[in-house]
């Protein structure tokens, strides 16, 4: 770490330091963020070529396609969450530090979401245009992604912590994390479909919010425990 945190600052100090540092690192490696974004755009653009440009079909498929592409794109950037810090020894220093590891993991996860999840959310309205989604449906899609992508980062952090330093960890990571994120996909894409069918979306958003709160409480702690196992 660049600046050594003092142990008098409480729990939040480690969180803030790690968040600031990880954001700075991702700003200096902009190509990583961009390649994730370009992957997202390309996967989404491949679908109309594969299934044909029928507008009605595309409108029906749009939420699912965008959601699946967002999940795959966030899987793509997950292995780097701990791998770089593991290879240069920073992770060991974090484990040895007096600050709460769970809070530092939360800081890293938030930085990961801000550098890979949030750009996807901001880009999704443009892609929704390609699929001829109505303005209100696009709004629902963006909101569902805004609630859902942090869950992907949090669940992904647990998987990344379990697989840190392993051979072929990126494929294994997707194998572990994707089944666990199925509820997010169902409720996220389901919100847009419910909106298109003229049903209320409050239920879907409430469930996504509940999932976010539960993973927010459990995931950093579990990922910290997994890191301790991986690094011993």
């Amino acid at each position, binding site marked *: 770490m660049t600046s050594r945190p003092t142990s008098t600052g409480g729990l939040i100090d480690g969180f803030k330091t790690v968040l600031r540092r990880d954001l700075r690192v991702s700003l200096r490696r902009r190509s990583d963020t961009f390649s994730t974004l370009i992957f997202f755009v390309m996967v989404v653009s491949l679908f109309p070529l594969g299934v044909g440009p029928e507008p009605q079909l595309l409108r029906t498929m749009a939420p699912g396609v965008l959601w699946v592409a967002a999940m795959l794109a966030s899987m793509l950037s997950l292995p780097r969450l701990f791998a770089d810090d593991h290879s240069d020894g920073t992770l060991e220093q974090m484990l040895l530090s007096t600050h709460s590891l769970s809070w530092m993991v939360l800081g890293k996860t938030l930085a990961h979401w801000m550098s890979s999840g949030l750009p996807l959310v901001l880009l999704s309205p443009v892609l929704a245009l390609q699929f001829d989604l109505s303005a209100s449906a696009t709004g629902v899609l963006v909101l569902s992604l805004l609630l859902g992508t942090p869950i992907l980062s949090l669940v992904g952090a647990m998987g990344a912590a379990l*697989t840190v330093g392993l051979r072929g960890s990126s494929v*294994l990571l997707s194998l572990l994390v994707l*089944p*666990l994120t199925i*509820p997010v996909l*169902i409720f996220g894409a389901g919100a847009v479909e419910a909106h298109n069918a003229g049903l209320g979306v409050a239920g879907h958003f409430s*469930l996504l919010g509940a*999932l976010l709160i539960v993973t927010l409480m459990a995931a950093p702690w579990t990922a910290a425990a997994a890191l301790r196992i*991986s690094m011993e």
Partner: protein
Amino acid sequence: MPTSKLQGQIKGNINWFKFAAPQRFYPLAGKLVPWFTVIGILLAAYGLYLGMWVAPTDATQGDAYRIIYVHVPTAWMSMVIYVAMAGWAGAGLVFNSRLSSMMACALAPTGALMAFLALWTGAVWGKPTWGTWWVWDARLTSTLVLLFLYIGFMSLHAAIDDVRRADRAAGVLALIGVVNVPIIYFSVVWWNTLHQGASVSFKGTSMATPMLVAMLVMALAFWAYCIALALMRVRVIILDRERHTAWARAEMGVT
């Protein structure tokens, strides 16, 4: 070993941890395997006889329904084994006992097999009754996800060279999975459903008595089969991990 301290504390009444040592559990498992194998074979023979000859033909589904004598027990076992596996993995994490983690490893392939068989027999049943091999129905999808979770557990364990680290990491994954299973289950239930509701519940049953009896006998047969299989596999795992010790080498006939 942390267990030895606990062992000392509760030695007063029953020695709960006597068989926590792989060396002591190995012969016990060896004695239990033939019993569960014989019980499993007898129950399966009786259950299949009841199911194929005694139970009546279903009024709406004809004879095609008879696959439930394999389908329902395998589906039950796939869920029961996951919970048991997570329980052993959790015990392995808490007590740091090697045998618990070995049990979790021994259960995983059997659980995956049960999940696969439940999907396979379900497809065979779905073709004559629903007219399709596969639908994206809640139960089918959640069983498929369960199969993925088993595969994830085994892959993670296989990917880590250090066995004790593999035990702990896979244990954490099993526990994450067991928390997530109800969430997945309800999410897919609300998402889509075609599978018939459960015929058996604590409130009562909508099945004819001979059918129910045959199914329960088959379920017990699958319990015995899975226990026998897990014990056989845990014996192999114990020998594999203890191969450096004198007793394991003697057991294998290596000098």
